């Protein structure tokens, strides 16, 4: 998925790779917590609907994890185990049956929604039906493997998922039947789009009206122009510390409308506790020196990249795409993002420390495991061989500072290779959908991808499989339009192998990563890191690889 307002394909996580720069923030983790007080959070703007089955933004995923629960979830810890799936509303993790096509969940007893109603198996079935009935953004990509999903995708209004999600009220179980084995199924239902809501939840996007949840907090009010107010859920009783621990603050106020500069100053001065948006570039040096104790930096399992349209000239020629990859000075691009402490150059699809990741960089002066320097000679030779020099190329970027800067840099690179290049920065709110739609004939763009769940398929299959390419649609997250049947087959083999032999599956995914990287449908630029600025009064800042900051686990003094 994408980092902010318009996301299209999957949820965010953060990585554990490499160095974690931080002030003594996590050191407080072992302290005894102090319940009470109100956390004050800031963001430039609200992120749209608060319907957990629809909202697809990191900004609200982060809060939905403390408002809602799924049958399973990712462990809420600040270390590598944060990628592990644990039982949440289900009593335990089910073992797949029927060759990996059947999962039986037994529901915990005694859990109530924030409106006081009891959680039942009927709620689970209704929630999964609702996802399809309201055409949730990931139903076609993450949940289309459930039996009956194809019918639901065709006619959402009459969706029953018959035979796909079956409740046994007496036994307190819900059975999921899949069309084919899916080794990532548990991860896919761990994200907020699979949150369990009351069966009575409206069958439409509820917009600014909150829906009852089972988490430790509930939304008291939401005005996208000013404030999202969260208070304790009076019916919440902790059932699993690793899945959904009770929270420390009594309330969480999420304010909207302050710009980045003002937000930084507010957090520095303790007038707010945290800001969602990354601090502006010109404040980084100040934060790294004067306010170092209030700053934490964590690597993310994400990438900034330049998708190239493999169906449009000049990028329909693999030599041109490889030339772009060779020509990019990734160290220079990293500078545009804030320097090597905030990003690492990369040339492959999978990010460091991700499952199946094996360091690989063919597009560098000295091909091997790491990027070292651009190889302009090789790049120019490839362009000369392609005979495409002199063609016109347009780069579409977001109108944000970093995206536009990278676009201008790429313009220089492409001009240097002999193309006549122009840059078109367009609104952040529409750029992601604009570059996906083939009708817009986008040749090359600047984009980002953040993991939804920690599996290679979330990068490789979602972004580069033939099935992810939907010509003429705004929801075609395979922006490059890359479709290689042989690589697609390898993905299927890797997915199948993972069920029987995870190690073998991981190996195959590594091979897919190399194959896609070699085909160069995109130019991977760097792996970003997340910088968090917190107030002096905020303690126990726990950064999860999956959820980022787990706000319920912090307290204020």
């Amino acid at each position, binding site marked *: 998925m994408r980092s902010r307002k318009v996301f299209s394909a999957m949820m965010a996580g953060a990585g554990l790779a490499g160095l974690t*720069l931080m*002030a003594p923030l996590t050191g407080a983790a072992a302290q005894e917590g102090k319940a009470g007080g109100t956390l004050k959070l800031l963001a430039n703007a609200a992120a749209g609907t608060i319907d957990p089955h629809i909202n697809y933004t990191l900004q609200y995923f982060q809060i939905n994890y403390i408002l809602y629960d799924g049958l399973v979830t990712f462990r809420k810890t600040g270390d590598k185990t944060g990628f592990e799936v644990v039982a949440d509303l289900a009593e335990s993790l089910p073992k797949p049956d029927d060759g990996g096509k059947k999962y039986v969940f037994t529901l915990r007893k005694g859990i109530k929604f924030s409106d006081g109603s009891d959680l039942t198996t009927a709620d689970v079935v209704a929630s999964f039906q609702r996802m399809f009935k309201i055409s949730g953004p990931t139903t076609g990509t993450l949940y289309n493997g459930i039996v009956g999903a194809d019918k639901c995708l065709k006619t959402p209004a009459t969706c029953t998922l018959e035979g796909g999600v079956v409740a046994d009220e007496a036994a307190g179980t819900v059975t999921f039947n899949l069309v084919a084995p899916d080794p990532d199924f548990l991860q896919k239902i761990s994200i907020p789009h699979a949150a369990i809501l009351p069966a009575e939840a409206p069958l439409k996007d509820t917009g600014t009206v909150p829906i009852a949840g089972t988490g430790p907090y509930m939304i008291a009010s939401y005005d996208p122009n000013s404030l999202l107010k969260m208070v304790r859920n009076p019916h919440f009783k902790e059932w699993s510390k690793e899945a959904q621990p009770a929270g420390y603050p009594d309330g969480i106020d999420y304010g909207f409308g302050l710009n980045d*500069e003002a937000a930084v100053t507010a957090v520095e001065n303790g007038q707010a506790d945290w800001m969602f948006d990354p601090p*502006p*570039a*010109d*404040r*980084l*040096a*100040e*934060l*790294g*020196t*004067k306010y*170092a104790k209030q*700053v934490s*930096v964590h690597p993310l399992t994400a990438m900034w990249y330049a998708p190239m349209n493999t169906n449009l000239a000049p990028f329909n020629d693999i030599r041109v795409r490889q030339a772009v990859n060779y020509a990019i*000075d990734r*160290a*220079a691009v990293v*500078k*545009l993002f*804030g*320097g090597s*402490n*905030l990003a690492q150059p990369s040339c492959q699809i999978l990010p460091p420390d991700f499952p199946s990741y094996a360091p690989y960089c063919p597009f560098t002066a000295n091909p091997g495991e790491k990027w070292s320097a651009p190889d302009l000679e090789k790049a120019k030779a490839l362009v000369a061989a392609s005979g495409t020099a002199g063609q016109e190329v*347009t780069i*579409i970027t977001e*109108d944000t*500072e970093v995206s*536009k*800067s990278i*676009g*201008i*840099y790429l*313009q*220089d690179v492409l001009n240097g290779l002999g193309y006549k290049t*122009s*840059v*078109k*920065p*367009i*609104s952040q709110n529409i750029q992601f959908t604009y570059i996906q739609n083939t009708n*817009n004939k986008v040749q090359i763009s600047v984009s980002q991808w953040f993991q939804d769940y920690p599996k290679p398929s979330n990068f490789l299959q979602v972004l580069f499989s033939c099935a992810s390419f939907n010509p003429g649609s705004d929801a075609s997250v395979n922006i490059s339009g890359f479709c290689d049947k042989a690589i697609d087959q390898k993905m299927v083999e890797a997915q199948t192998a993972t069920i029987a032999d995870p190690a073998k599956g991981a190996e195959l995914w590594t091979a897919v990563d190399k194959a896609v990287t070699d085909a160069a449908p995109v130019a991977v630029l760097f792996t970003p890191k997340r*910088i968090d600025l917190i107030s002096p009064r905020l303690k126990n800042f726990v950064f999860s690889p999956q959820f980022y900051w787990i706000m319920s686990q912090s307290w204020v003094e």
Partner: protein
Amino acid sequence: MDNLSAGQALVRSHRGAEGPWRTAWRKLRADRAAIMAFGVLVLITAASLAAPLYARHVSGTDPFATNLNGEIVIHGETRQVLEPSTEGLGLGFTPLGPTWDFGPYMLGADNQGRDVAARLLYGGRNSLLIAGAAALICLGLATLLGVVSGFFGGLVDTLLSRILDVLWAFPIFLLAISLSIVLITQSITIGPIEIRSGSLWLPIFIIGIVYVPYVARPIRGHVLSLMQAEFVTAAIGIGASPWRILLYDILPNVITRVIVFVPLILALNMMTESSLSFLSIGVQPPDASWGTIIQDGQGLLYSRPIVALAPGLAIVICVLALNILGDGVRDALDPKSSIRVA
């Protein structure tokens, strides 16, 4: 002389009197503030036109190419154009600050490592070009529509007035932004003319169009009042053709009012261009205008405020000078005072 009749004296005094244009020019020259403003504008225009010379011979850098790994020697010390933070957590880069030497990076670098002073001059060229060309389009169209509408009246007037009303009804920036967003990624074809996306003609065209009603409506009103004037009635009375009345009685009087509009529309256009470029829907990178440079500087307000302040100051000076000049021109040509071209 003493024996001259009153009539002869009047003829003689008319022969010796200066014409209305000469009177206007004399009045304008007497307005020191207006002349100073004109001088400032000439200076800024000349400096902007000299941008290529400055970039080549003074700054020695390409103001349109990124220079992320560049280095420069200042007073014997080698410095990086983008200086990394080396203290604390070592986060971020700060572009080189102003050297204040008449040479490379006199006003420092922007976040792409480009020379701000050179970009400022190139930006001035684009800002002035867009403002000027858009003013020509706007005043030309507005004059045509206003005169035709007011002179011919009837159905023509009703039709043109309603079209102008529709344009007038849109908030100016909303209209400009909407047009920009629609046109920014695709070409626009008007007859044989194709304006390609990214072309400077796109903001020129957009800005030229959006202010047409603001000029056309007063001109139409002026034409309507001129139609009731005695000299027009007299011309009709002696059997002058409509085209003669239009060319010799109406247009010369309208022209003075159009001239009064020139500095005002120029100033408005300059601010609109800056605003559109600031919103990324005017001049497209790597081209510069004062608006795009302000946008580049927005992210550096805290560490390198000069990047945004310099073009901001240039806009303020230009707009102020244009307004002062506009006042002078209006005072000199105001048809309600002594000037009457008949």
